[in-house]
């Protein structure tokens, strides 16, 4: 048998992720079926819940905004060969930057607050990504373990800050004061009526800019080239005169800064105050999004939209089918990570073999076999 050839590009970036996604849906469907519900009805409810009306689409876009940032954060690190699973902690700490700036400037104008908050979020989130990067670059500790630890440290830090520092007098729960109306990020519903009463806000523009920005940065700049070289082969990068330790620190800082943008969407755009665990499990969804989207901004945009739809549809699920709720989506998400990330090798050989059947070389070989006979 001739050696398997690598997949053509279109199969690698589109067909394989779609197959893996289909498998994730299939297994989740079996779980739903096993529990005695109709999986097709569930899918239908999720799709209607995500896209059924302007209201639903508004929510889908709001979730997708978060997932674009989280996915880009994982992707930028991944291009440098780093696995950042600290997105949650970075987004959480970035919330601190957003709220401090927003509360200080809240009485001016949102046009002043927003850029300052973006900067603060990038600074705080970037810092929370920089330390693990620095520790890996200079002290040799593994960035995965450090970012896990930093997620927990961030959680402890933020509980303390919310309970002791940011909690205004007269409020019982661990949360900060509300940002004044003038300082909040405007909602898209103000400009576009179908989105009324939905949380989607101008941060989505920032998300689109981030997608374009990361594309340009990774594929069309010297930094991006160096990053990808390091990700492919750190030894080659060193011989090419690229400072790996500098690149690791830069990549992790950028990754953290991108994760930090989640806080802009949540704190300045939606919650208008800092609450416990406002970021949910966005860092982990980011892993699924980046894996699905093959670390490419276009892929990430689609994957983020898909997960946004799953999240919003999952929320609506409980109103349509009693007993089913959002946790179905967590299962789908986990299966996407499992099949697309860890079991990537599941379909690849089969797909390679299948596609080779259609390749010209294979045909020529088959013809040769047929003419020479089975023994030849």
């Amino acid at each position, binding site marked *: 048998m001739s050696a398997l050839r690598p997949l053509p590009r279109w199969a690698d970036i589109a067909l394989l992720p779609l197959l893996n996604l289909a498998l994730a849906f299939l297994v989740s469907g079996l779980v739903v079926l096993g529990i005695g519900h109709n999986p097709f009805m569930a899918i239908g409810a999720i799709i209607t819940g995500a896209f059924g009306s302007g209201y639903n689409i508004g929510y889908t876009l709001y979730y997708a905004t978060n997932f674009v940032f989280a996915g880009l954060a994982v992707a930028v690190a991944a291009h440098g060969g780093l696995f950042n*699973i600290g997105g949650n902690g970075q987004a959480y700490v970035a919330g601190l930057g957003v709220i401090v700036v927003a509360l200080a400037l809240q009485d001016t104008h949102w046009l002043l607050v927003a850029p300052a908050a973006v900067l603060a979020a990038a600074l705080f989130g970037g810092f929370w990504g920089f330390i693990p990067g620095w520790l890996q670059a200079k002290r040799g500790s593994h960035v*995965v373990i450090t970012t896990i*630890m930093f997620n*927990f440290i961030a959680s*402890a830090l933020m509980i303390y800050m919310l309970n002791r520092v940011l909690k205004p007098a007269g409020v019982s729960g661990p949360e900060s004061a509300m940002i004044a109306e003038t300082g909040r990020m405007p909602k898209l519903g103000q400009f576009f009526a179908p989105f009324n009463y939905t949380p989607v806000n101008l941060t989505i523009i920032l998300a689109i800019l981030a997608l374009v920005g990361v594309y340009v940065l990774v594929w069309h700049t010297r930094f991006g080239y160096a990053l990808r070289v390091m990700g492919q082969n750190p030894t080659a990068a060193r011989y090419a005169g690229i400072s790996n330790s500098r690149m690791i620190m830069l990549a992790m800082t950028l990754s953290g800064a991108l994760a930090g943008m989640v806080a802009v969407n949540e704190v300045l755009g939606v919650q208008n105050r800092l609450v416990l665990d406002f970021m949910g499990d966005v860092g982990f969804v980011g892993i699924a999004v980046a894996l699905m989207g093959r670390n490419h901004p276009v892929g990430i945009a689609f994957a983020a939209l898909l997960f946004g739809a799953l999240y919003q549809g999952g929320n609506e699920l409980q109103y349509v089918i009693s007993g089913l709720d959002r946790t179905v989506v*967590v299962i789908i998400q*986990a299966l996407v990570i499992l099949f697309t990330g*860890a079991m990537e090798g599941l379909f690849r050989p089969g797909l390679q073999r299948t596609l080779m059947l259609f390749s010209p070389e294979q045909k020529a070989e088959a013809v040769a076999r047929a003419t020479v006979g089975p023994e030849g």
Partner: protein
Amino acid sequence: MDFNTILSVLDATLRLSTPLLLACLAGLYSERSGVFDIGLEGKMLAAAFAAGVVAALTGSAWLGLLAALAVSVMTTMLQGAAAITLKGNQLIAGVAINMLAAGLTTFLGQQWFRQGGRTPQLSGDGRFGPIDLPFAQQLSGVPIIGPIYSELISGHYILVYIAFLAVPVTAYVLYRTRFGLRLRAVGENPKAVDTAGISVVKMRYQAIFITGLLCGLAGAYFSIAQGSGFGNNMTAGKGFIALAALIFAKWKPLPAMFTCLLFGFLDALQIRLQGARLFDVEIPVQAIQALPYVLTVVLLAGFIGKAVGPKAGGVPYTKER
């Protein structure tokens, strides 16, 4: 603090370090064989759920334990299939397992029992009861030694004794048996092991099988020993503390025990210190909660000694073609 307070904190330390120790030893087998395991949390959670469900349905803690072991091993094998056979990214496999366990336990728990993801309260034989060691009653009157024996050492769940027994057993297996030698070798230099005619894949599966068993014990401890039933996400990050402890212990069994005791002590202290004051300054509980994580980061950075893991850890083994 008086003698009785110290005793009760130490007693809590033992109880709180038990699941950490079991999970930490579980991780030790896996990582010594070259498979990084950040899925300890998920396996424990799945096992805790299985134990809670089966114990609630059958009323038997032992059947619950059996279910925990079975489910934990199954989860481990799924992770192994991804990380060993399919040569996938071990870290991503771990993340997926954690998430899958969190989602499935919540989903199935809610579906089956309709109590917000909780399993029904266990009582009687559905839970492991404390075990009184011999002469605990008679010795309790003796000053100092009596209370230490009857309060601190006696009266724990069977899983506590198993956990601490697993430490010398692990040390023996690791350093005194052929299996242990191969286990250590396969994590350091799988190629050499392969050249010697031993299957790297088989060795790693054997190692993670033990990991599955130990995670099963740890999970069962949460729901049918320490707790009386499964609660949503009840392992609450203990799998990651165990991971931190494993690194802190530099992948060695005896240091693993002391690290887990230390982290358990911090946990016990944190519970006791809620609202306590030291020199008129209130100690933030969060600072103590974060301490194991901070210590691990500092250790990994080489500021207090260097933690170097098994050399082949995290890399799937591919035979040369």
